[in-house]
């Protein structure tokens, strides 16, 4: 199949970016989107041009490294799919696709389609952990967890931190990410001791990174490759309200 790509090219953080157009004539419909870019990059390299820089690692939809917008939708048009798992058969022959990096003040472009997402790491560092002594694994039945709770915690823990929620949000808010991280720990018994501090610290870190606030547009959930629900945003809100109302020190 034939594909025309309009790709955002930007040499460095400081450089001004622009779109460049590339035509590919023999794209195999079974290729993943990233494999199609590999073909483009081979072609560019042979022509002595700079290949398009894009993030990727596992290429099986579990690491969260890949991600940019295809025609205005984060991770492209397929629901619940990362770019690396998106196949070319979902596009029409002759399609014109515009590729643009995540755009947010907290995610500066490093090069082409790669953005710096370390802001999300700093949100995790602020409280997305539990403080336990490591060592031999504890006996598994010490903390019984109801099945529904375990399932819900897993739903939140499915977040791969790709940043699509921020990219798709009209406010560039990281609420879905932060909510998922707050919730998967907050649902588990091991997460309880630090639960009230965790929510406050992670929200403070999120605000400090320059992300916007949530106005319940729901775009994050719509593009999330792991289909994480905005229900967790409500849960984060509940935790924050509780932490503010507690009579004891938090």
């Amino acid at each position: 199949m034939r594909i025309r790509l309009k790709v955002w090219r930007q040499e460095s953080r400081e450089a001004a970016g622009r779109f460049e157009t590339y035509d590919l004539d023999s794209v195999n419909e079974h290729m993943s989107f990233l494999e199609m870019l590999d073909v483009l990059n081979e072609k560019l390299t042979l022509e002595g041009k700079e290949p398009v820089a894009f993030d990727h690692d596992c290429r099986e939809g579990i690491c969260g490294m890949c991600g940019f917008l295809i025609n205005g939708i984060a991770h492209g048009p397929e629901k619940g799919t990362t770019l690396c798992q998106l196949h070319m058969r979902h596009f029409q022959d002759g399609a014109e696709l515009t590729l643009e990096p995540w755009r947010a003040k907290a995610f500066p472009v490093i090069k082409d389609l790669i953005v710096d997402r370390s802001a999300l790491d700093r949100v995790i560092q602020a409280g997305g952990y539990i403080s336990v002594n490591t060592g031999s694994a504890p006996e598994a039945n010490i903390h019984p967890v109801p099945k529904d709770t375990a399932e819900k915690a897993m739903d939140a823990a499915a977040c791969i931190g790709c940043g699509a929620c921020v990219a798709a949000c009209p406010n560039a808010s990281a609420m879905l990410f932060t909510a998922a991280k707050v919730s998967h720990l907050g649902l588990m018994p091991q997460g309880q001791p630090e639960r009230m501090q965790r929510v406050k610290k992670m929200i403070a870190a999120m605000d400090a990174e320059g992300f916007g606030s949530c106005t319940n547009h729901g775009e994050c959930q719509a593009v999330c490759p792991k289909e994480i629900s905005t229900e967790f945003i409500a849960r984060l809100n509940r935790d924050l309200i509780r932490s503010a109302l507690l009579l004891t020190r938090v």
Partner: protein
Amino acid sequence: MCGNSPAANPPGKPVEEFFAEDMAVRMIKTLTQTTVGQKVLMAVTGLILFLFILGHLSGNLLIFAGREHMNEYAHFLHEHPKFLWPARIVLLFCFFVHIVAAARLWLKNRSAREEGYTIYLPIETTIAARTMIYGGAAIFFFLLWHLLHLTFGVVGPRFDPNDVYGNVVRGFQNPAIAGIYLVGVACLCAHLYHGAWSLLHTLGLSAPEIDCAKKKAARILAVLIGLGYASIPLAVLTGVVR
């Protein structure tokens, strides 16, 4: 007691100092210094304003019961300043908090994406949700005008403080004034179309089993409120109420 490793605190701040805030200070800080806290302020004040909108509508619909009923109700309110004034002060306070929080969050959200997308295709959001700040501002100016018209009687046709019914009818017989009301009510309707369920989500009311019904119910209520308010100028314009 806080089960927290010191390393997790900001460097140079001992654990005790960092967490030794009393509840009131902690609450005010959370509500005014965090984005989520400001959203909670907006939701609580929005809910109070929403309840007012409902009460105000039910009073206004008395116009269909006739001149005596409407004037009697208005008279009753003015006879009881002990209830009227505290309610007005609460409303004014809610407006103030709601607008200040809206402005602060809006500025933060705007600065969170300095360079916009060339192509951006929203999937889930609505026009109502994306125009909250503009609709809100329009409601604010409409409200000022509305107060000048029917509370203070400074704008519009002849004003008689003892004949609320007559003031409303005389006003709406002027198509320009009725038009302003219809536009204002349309803005309110759009604002509530998103706001009414958004505030519930912000306050933490969400579960997979109820989310769809919650959204639908809030949206239907918003449309009903819009239709309810719009019915009054329309009834006067068409001569049903005179």
